[in-house]
């Protein structure tokens, strides 16, 4: 009994030490090379209802790249870290349907984390998820205007799981499901911060749906002062 209490106590101290010494991984993802030009979404423009929501020509956003090559919408995550998800307790991730487009279109969540899909449009959408990983099930739900948010979650990790609307076939969102809280999505400046990573050696991978769908890996060591990892994804 005494031994058991001692072990529990030691484990608690170890966990506390790890949490207290946890640090952030920061870095920038840049794109080298010229991406293809984005296209006007002609069917959206031509749609009698959805077209009215856009005063300018709506375009695709596959590559959001800054002047210095800073790449937005890249997912950076720790590779091989599984079973650490705090998804059930995590804040839900919101995906809105606005102007007959998903916003945001690139999202990352933990396994088990709730995704709330809103419909801010005065038109009907159907939210059709098409996972490919075993354990994640395909769903297709109608969502009327002003109806309650749909709550969706996935139990298995998967990269770029597709959300689509079949009523408006240009509408897509891509959700990466990670089995840990250690991931981030780059902003328009290409920067990311993965928070509260316990010290240790890791493989960090940067994924971009078009430029690097399989991921670009980097070995790093996280100390109590954190770590940095910059990625340059090359377009071939």
């Amino acid at each position, binding site marked *: 009994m005494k031994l058991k209490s001692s072990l529990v106590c030691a484990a608690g101290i170890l966990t506390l030490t790890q949490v207290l010494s946890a640090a952030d991984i920061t870095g920038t993802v840049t794109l080298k090379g010229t991406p293809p030009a984005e296209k006007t979404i002609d069917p959206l423009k031509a749609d009698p209802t*959805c077209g009215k929501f856009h005063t300018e020509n709506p375009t695709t956003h596959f590559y959001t790249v800054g002047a210095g090559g800073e790449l937005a919408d890249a997912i950076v995550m720790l590779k091989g870290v599984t079973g650490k998800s705090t998804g059930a307790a995590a804040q839900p991730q919101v995906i809105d349907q606005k102007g007959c487009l998903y916003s945001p279109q690139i999202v990352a969540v933990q396994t088990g984390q709730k995704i709330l899909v809103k419909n801010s449009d005065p038109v009907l959408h159907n939210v059709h998820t098409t996972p490919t990983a075993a354990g994640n099930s395909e769903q297709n739900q109608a969502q009327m205007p002003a109806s309650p948010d749909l709550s969706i979650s996935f139990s298995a990790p998967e990269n770029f799981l597709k959300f689509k609307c079949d*009523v408006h*076939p240009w509408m897509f969102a891509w959700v990466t499901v990670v089995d840990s809280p250690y991931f981030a999505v780059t902003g328009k400046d290409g920067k990311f911060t993965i928070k509260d990573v316990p010290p240790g050696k890791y493989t960090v991978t940067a994924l971009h749906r078009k430029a690097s769908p399989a991921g670009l890996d980097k070995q790093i060591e996280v100390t109590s002062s954190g770590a940095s990892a910059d990625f340059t994804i090359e377009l071939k």
Partner: protein
Amino acid sequence: MLTALATLGLVGLGGVVTSHEAGMAVPDWPTSYGYNMFALPMRFWKGGIFYEHTHRLWATLVGLLVVLLTRWLGGFESRRPLALIGGAEVLAGIAVFLFRPELKATGHFLTGIGGVVLMAALIWTRKGSSQPGLCKMGWLAFFLVQLQGLLGGLRVVLFKDHIGILHGTLAQIFFVLLCLIAVRTGWWWEQTGLRMPLVDPVNLRRWAFLVTALIFCQLLLGASMRHQHAGLAIRDFPLAYGKIWPATDSESLARYNSQRVETTVSNPITAFEIRLQMAHRAGALLVLIAVAGFLRSARGQGVFKGVLVLSGLVLLQATLGAATVWTNKAADVATGHVLVGALSLVTGAVLCMILPCGSLRSPQSTVVPVESGPAH
């Protein structure tokens, strides 16, 4: 003929649905957004829903026409089997509701179709059954239309693309069957004035079967390509990524995908899809060669006009295939490609049906009833 024309329209609508990636725009079946499918309010008929729901309603019309056709071909003798089948379907539907409530969509379908079949059995007719062959074709169409409806619905509720491929392929077979029935029941089949001599019907029959089989394989490949939801796997023609045979290694695939900017299709292309399209292109070449051989063999013979029509359709189909690539799979062009494919298959099948009749009577020199054009 009416049923065959309605089915051609249905095949076209199926092409419109897949061309617009709208197959899942109505998430439930056989209800539509919770409504009885015949009572879906007009405010829902927008975007992909318009295409998918029209396809469903049109399919119901075709189903009704086929049940009536079966009754007509079967004459008064078909009353009892239809009543038994309809009753069994209604009972099966009720059983599904009671014991497998999770499959209630299938229960709705069975009771609905069973009710229609029962009503068809109630129609009083003194007409006797048609020739046994025709009667069997009618029954085959009767079962196929129900299977086809069930497959279409299961594609939606089970999320299976493979069912979609089967649904698309079976649609072509079903259309061929109805066209053959239309030809067999048409005035031109009975007319003896169109009998024309054939020098070598056995050889012609071989050509007809070869061309038709090749066209069918092409349609199978086409249906598989449409259900990959990846758009055009190869975006140039006559070359493929600038080569006669494109590279499909992982580095090349990554390059192709990184340069693609698609608006309405989204899946990354794979090596399988590239090979599928290359097989489709090679198949098209084979069909063109085969149909040229068929045309050469048929020169001066009774079926020449029919083979000429088939050649014209195949040529048009090849042009539409190229145009599908050049227009980046424009929905109207891609739908036209589906329709002309169906018409080519039917023309080949009608020629296959015509030719054996003559050759069985006299393999050396015979006459067969020949229609002057395709049966549609």
